[in-house]
């Protein structure tokens, strides 16, 4: 089976005041129809990698790679027109800052309906029905009200779910979800992950879940890639997370507050510059 997405030797740099500042330094990933977790601390280049798969980086960014291929299309040579067709229809990206990414002066439901109509031929009425259906799938209690609400009238978690519904609307083959559930409580989080899981197993969708929540990723995904400083630190099966060997991964696991026992101070991660060079 050909992989859904293939990245080999991806480098992304941003122009800084004193030359190029690397954000991603040689990442290689192969993704099939599975659930891949991408974890790592803030600023480690997770979002930049996800955006590179959509070619959604600012024009000032410099992208270099040996291979960058999604759903059979070579992103390094694709025309803007081909990219436009690929985005939305074949790949969806749930952005990290949902309320900030929604249009503040357009009702949330209209935005979902528009995403649906961009890739399904259908009337306004059908688009509305589809949007309402998607809203109830992401566990919105009152879809009709949320459909007509402007983004600032939604709670943080509702905004996040609207974003998810919008990205599911065209029925993509590959979904990149950047912190999709960070503002959701455990009940809704579990339900949304179940929905994504169903889409992966029923429709054969590929999923990249970008998250900083290690326990969640380890329960939900098949495979985990740990990033640090723009590099892949280690790659392991989700079930083996507790046996992770890299000190960085261990540190990440260690600094979570726990419900079962009080801790006076949370240990913070001591970073070792050597991690940037290896493994």
């Amino acid at each position, binding site marked *: 089976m050909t992989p859904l997405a293939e990245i080999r030797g991806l480098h992304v740099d941003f122009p800084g*005041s*004193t030359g190029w500042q690397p954000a991603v330094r040689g990442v290689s990933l192969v993704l099939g129809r599975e659930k891949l977790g991408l974890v790592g601390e803030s600023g480690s280049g997770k979002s930049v990698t996800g955006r590179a798969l959509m070619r959604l980086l*600012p024009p*000032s960014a410099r992208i270099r790679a040996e291979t960058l291929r999604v759903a059979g299309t070579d992103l390094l040579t694709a025309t803007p027109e081909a990219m436009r067709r690929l985005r939305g229809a074949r790949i969806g990206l749930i952005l990290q800052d949902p309320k900030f990414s929604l249009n*503040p*002066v357009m009702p949330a439901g209209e935005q979902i309906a528009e995403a649906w109509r961009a890739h399904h031929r259908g009337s306004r009425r059908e688009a509305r029905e589809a949007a309402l259906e998607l809203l109830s799938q992401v566990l919105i209690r009152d879809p009709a009200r949320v459909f007509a609400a*402007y983004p*600032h009238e939604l709670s943080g978690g509702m905004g996040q779910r609207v974003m998810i519904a919008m990205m599911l609307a065209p029925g993509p083959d590959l979904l990149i979800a950047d912190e999709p559930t960070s503002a959701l409580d455990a009940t809704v989080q579990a339900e949304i992950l179940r929905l994504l899981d169903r889409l992966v197993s029923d429709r054969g969708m590929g999923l990249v879940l970008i998250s900083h929540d290690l326990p969640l990723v380890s329960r939900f995904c098949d495979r985990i890639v740990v990033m640090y400083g723009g590099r892949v630190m280690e790659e392991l099966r989700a079930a083996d997370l507790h046996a992770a060997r890299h000190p960085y991964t261990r540190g990440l696991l260690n600094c979570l507050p726990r419900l079962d026992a009080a801790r006076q101070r949370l240990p913070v991660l001591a970073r070792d510059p050597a991690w940037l060079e290896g493994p």
Partner: protein
Amino acid sequence: MSAPFSREWLLSDAPESRRQAAWGQRYQAWLAFRRNGLAMAGLAVVLLLLAMALLAPWLATHDPGAQNLGVRLAPPSATHWLGTDELGRDLWSRLVFGARITLGMVVAVVLLVAPLGLIVGCAAGYAGGMVDRLLMRVTDVFLAFPRLVLALAFVAALKPGVESAVIAIALTAWPPYARLARAETLTVRNADFIAAVRLTGASATRTVLRHVAPVAVPSLVVRVTLDMSSFILTAAGLGFLGLGAQPPLPEWGTMIATSRRFILEQWWVPLIPGIAIFLASLAFNLLGDGLRDVLDPKQR
């Protein structure tokens, strides 16, 4: 430590003081602006035109008002670099002095229109409710009239001349700016960063002027530069109807208007001020486009 205003000082990643940071930001904006070749060309032309207006008495070869009916409609030559018009006046000298009047009018209109539109639009968008409806109805009323007709009415009520043309154009040009500023305001008024400002206890005036309005400025700048040519043309239209700059003042628009009947035989007479207007509008456009990118720190 590097010396103040050296390249390292300006580009430092960790400025020591606010002054250094401010200059560093300006320098980075300049660097970003410099990368945009078209914008640089626009800036160069605008500076040239401004220099031309300022140095007019030294650049002109003749008195712009002096008539010499013996050489009417002469083609360009060594004595009259760009030829002469229908009254035998030297076109180059008129063009140079005209830059003062035309650019002066445009700048005056912009200085009146942009702040007015910005304040009205931001206030309406931020306040919402009754204030918004009232201010927007007023702008609608102004928008409902064709620009030239409304300007005509204003000038007729005042006395014809450059000042009244400026006021008339400004009065008719601000509503689109108010609408634009209002639209921009609506996108940020409910944002958390504005709520955070309100939570510090800042007054509504301060919130609008210091935090809301700056968000609307870049799109207004672009709109203003796109409108410059239409300001020049409206001024010309008013001049042509005898309500703007009065002859013999060498205003570019008036120059075209009075010489357009020679367009077939002595085509250079209307063409030369036309080229000047075109160049000025294009330069302002390019400059505005470059400025928009620089004004938004995210684009740099």
